[in-house]
């Protein structure tokens, strides 16, 4: 039986196991939306395409599934660009469908036409323009495979309107044929042994774990390796949760606002085992100060991440989980007591750094300190909530004062640093994990960037909690201007902000304002009782609080400012 392109598309999505789509209709997508009307796939209508794609991104990060979103041609498609780039930078698997004008109009500057394949080319893992209805099934199978395998990433599929109306037989391809795409999953055993030998011989080793550990589901293996070898683990910002944040071998995260012990330790090791990290500049600081005396082994599924920023001595291309399992099966052949004394001293030195300079703030202050809000959320949720963040100071405090027990518990825009990400991502995370409490730790500046999504959360009864650390500033901008620009607060003051409580209420959400420190915990507890709509908590925090420690731009990793 012949089906229209739109029907083939929706049926392919069902075959692919898609049960949730974030999308915004438009002229060229009407055929598809008409088909979706009869489908059992749940569809979420955001209030802006950017909200939709960030929600799909948050859903993907929290669940480990591929996020799916739709936008129409032209402005619908261009509104998705930030979200595509965000997913690309943090290796999030998304399949993004964009509507396109009819094929005979392409190139003619038709109404709502944009060359979205061209616009997104540098920020996708791959993209497709559908040329006929017969290829839809193959393209969708390939797209989901490409998005989720190897180093995950976003795939864009552009759908011309007329092709969606044309008819063809539905033929599901029995296999995927992509001769140019064969990600290496298994690591080279010789290299793995070499890595283990170097790890065995090291006196001051560290494991540096990135987001790849979480993406590949390698947390258990990572924890085991650290326990069996006694090697301390330092994570990147997005690697948080890779091993439990409460684990005795876990030191913390490193980088511009990472903890003192991690940054100090990273300047000194004689051997680093890097796992699933791309050595981002925000993590390493000035490169010549980053572990200058260390030999480095690097496990990564993306060969181009190896030796891109830091010179690697032992490259191991492969999926983190698979390679760590290979390493674990060899582990008994090595003597982990060999440098026991030196390594114990090393661990103690790191722990002493941590004791000397833990993350801290003025706990005696009568003002609400933003860190106190994050700590209270940690306490009230017993460390079990999924924490999404916006971007800026709020994001750093969310990294510093919440300990992430599990992978996929910390959802934050790392590489692109997208303001406005956290709230829609929280909606996506909650839809994907309805049994978990989901918080968006927000700044007042970032929250304003996708505030319209309160409506989405209300419409679909998504009970996310937003904790606005409201300082009426673009806080991180103010901090930099305070520290490096002589207190010249150029355009960082948000003097005119809405009354977030009334605003929440006008959306039929719950709004709370918390002005007093003693009300913080109670408000958070109260918010957890609300199970059917979003809660917007507006915390009036100390306006001039800064994030410390801080590695100034261009400084080495151990050249932190502590206050």
């Amino acid at each position: 039986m012949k089906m229209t392109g739109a029907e083939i598309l929706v049926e392919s999505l069902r075959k692919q196991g898609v049960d949730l789509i974030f999308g915004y209709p438009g002229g060229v997508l009407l055929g598809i939306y008409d088909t979706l009307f009869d489908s059992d796939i749940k569809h979420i209508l955001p209030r802006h395409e950017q909200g939709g794609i960030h929600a799909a991104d948050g859903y993907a990060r929290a669940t480990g599934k591929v996020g799916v979103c739709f936008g129409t041609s032209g402005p619908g498609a261009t509104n998705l660009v930030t979200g595509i780039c965000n997913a690309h930078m943090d290796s999030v698997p998304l399949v993004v469908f964009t509507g396109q004008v009819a094929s005979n109009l392409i190139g003619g500057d038709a109404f709502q036409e944009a060359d979205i394949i061209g616009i997104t080319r540098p920020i996708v893992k791959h993209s497709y323009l559908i040329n006929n209805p017969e290829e839809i099934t193959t393209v969708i199978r390939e797209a989901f495979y490409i998005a989720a395998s190897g180093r995950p990433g976003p795939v864009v599929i552009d759908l011309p309107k007329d092709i969606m109306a044309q008819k063809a037989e539905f033929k599901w391809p029995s296999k995927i044929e992509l001769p140019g795409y064969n990600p290496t999953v298994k690591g080279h055993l010789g290299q793995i042994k070499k890595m283990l030998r170097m790890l065995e011989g090291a006196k001051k080793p560290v494991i540096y774990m990135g987001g790849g550990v979480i993406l590949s589901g390698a947390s258990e293996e990572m924890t085991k390796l650290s326990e069996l070898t006694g090697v301390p683990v330092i994570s990147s910002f997005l690697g948080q949760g890779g091993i439990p944040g409460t684990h005795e071998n876990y030191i913390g995260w490193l980088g511009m606002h990472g903890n003192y012990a991690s940054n100090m330790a990273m300047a000194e090791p004689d051997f680093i085992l890097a796992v699933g990290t791309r050595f981002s500049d925000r993590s390493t600081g000035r490169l010549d100060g980053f572990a200058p005396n260390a030999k480095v082994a690097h496990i990564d599924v993306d060969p181009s991440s190896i030796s891109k920023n830091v010179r690697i001595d032992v490259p191991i291309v492969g999926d983190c989980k698979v390679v760590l399992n290979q390493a674990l099966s060899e582990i008994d052949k090595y003597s982990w007591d060999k440098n026991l004394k030196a390594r114990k001293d090393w661990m103690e030195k790191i722990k002493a750094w941590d004791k000397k300079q833990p993350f801290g703030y003025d706990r005696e202050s009568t003002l609400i300190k933003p860190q106190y809000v994050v700590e209270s959320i940690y306490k009230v949720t017993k460390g079990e909530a999924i924490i999404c963040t916006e971007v800026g100071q709020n994001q750093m405090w969310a990294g510093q004062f919440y300990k992430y027990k599990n992978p996929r518990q910390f959802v934050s825009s790392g590489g692109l640093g997208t303001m406005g990400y956290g709230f829609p991502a929280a909606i996506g995370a909650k839809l994907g994990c309805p049994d978990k409490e989901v918080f968006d730790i927000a700044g007042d500046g970032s929250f304003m960037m996708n505030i319209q999504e309160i409506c989405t959360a209300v419409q679909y009864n998504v009970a996310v909690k937003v904790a606005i650390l409201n300082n009426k500033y673009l806080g991180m901008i103010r901090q930099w201007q305070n520290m490096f620009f002589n207190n010249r607060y150029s355009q960082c003051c948000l003097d005119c902000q809405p009354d977030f409580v009334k605003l929440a209420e006008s959306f039929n959400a719950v709004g709370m304002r918390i002005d007093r420190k003693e009300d913080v915990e109670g408000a958070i507890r109260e918010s957890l009782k609300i199970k059917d709509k979003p809660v917007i908590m507006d915390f009036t925090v100390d306006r001039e609080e800064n994030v410390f420690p801080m590695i100034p731009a261009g400084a080495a990793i151990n050249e932190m400012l502590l206050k």
Partner: protein
Amino acid sequence: MRHTISVLVENKFGVLSRISGLFSGRGYNIESLSVNKTMDVNISTMTIVTTGDADVIEQIIKQLRKLVNVLRVRDVSEMEHIEREMMLVKVRTEKSTRSEIFNVVGTFRAKTVDITNNSLVIEITGDRGKILAFLKVLEPYGIIEVVRTGAIALSRGSKATSDFK
């Protein structure tokens, strides 16, 4: 360092722009790029001449390999290879210089492909050194216009780029 990279790609929509975009987006330099179909019409070969230190070339090759439509990448300058480009050059002639120029054309084993009373169009193929030497010799006569293809390259011996991972 100048490197010549041979890239086997699927002959699909947008491949060329994916590759050229990779170079421009990451700030790599393309000196020349030539592309055409192979014996198999579904597969094309691109020969890319680029410059960079060892780290840059390593990244270029890795980034190229990441593209879904790229089948094989090989740095042919690492091995013995043959490299050729072609040039068409239009040069001014006078009665007194024409035979001299013909001599030069003969010496370089080039070919005259168009002739008027006061100009010649000459076709020449060769490696970059030969092409540049030829241009230098012709320069004093007055070069009107030059078009050059990019380089194309093949490794010596019986192995093909498709045999290399």
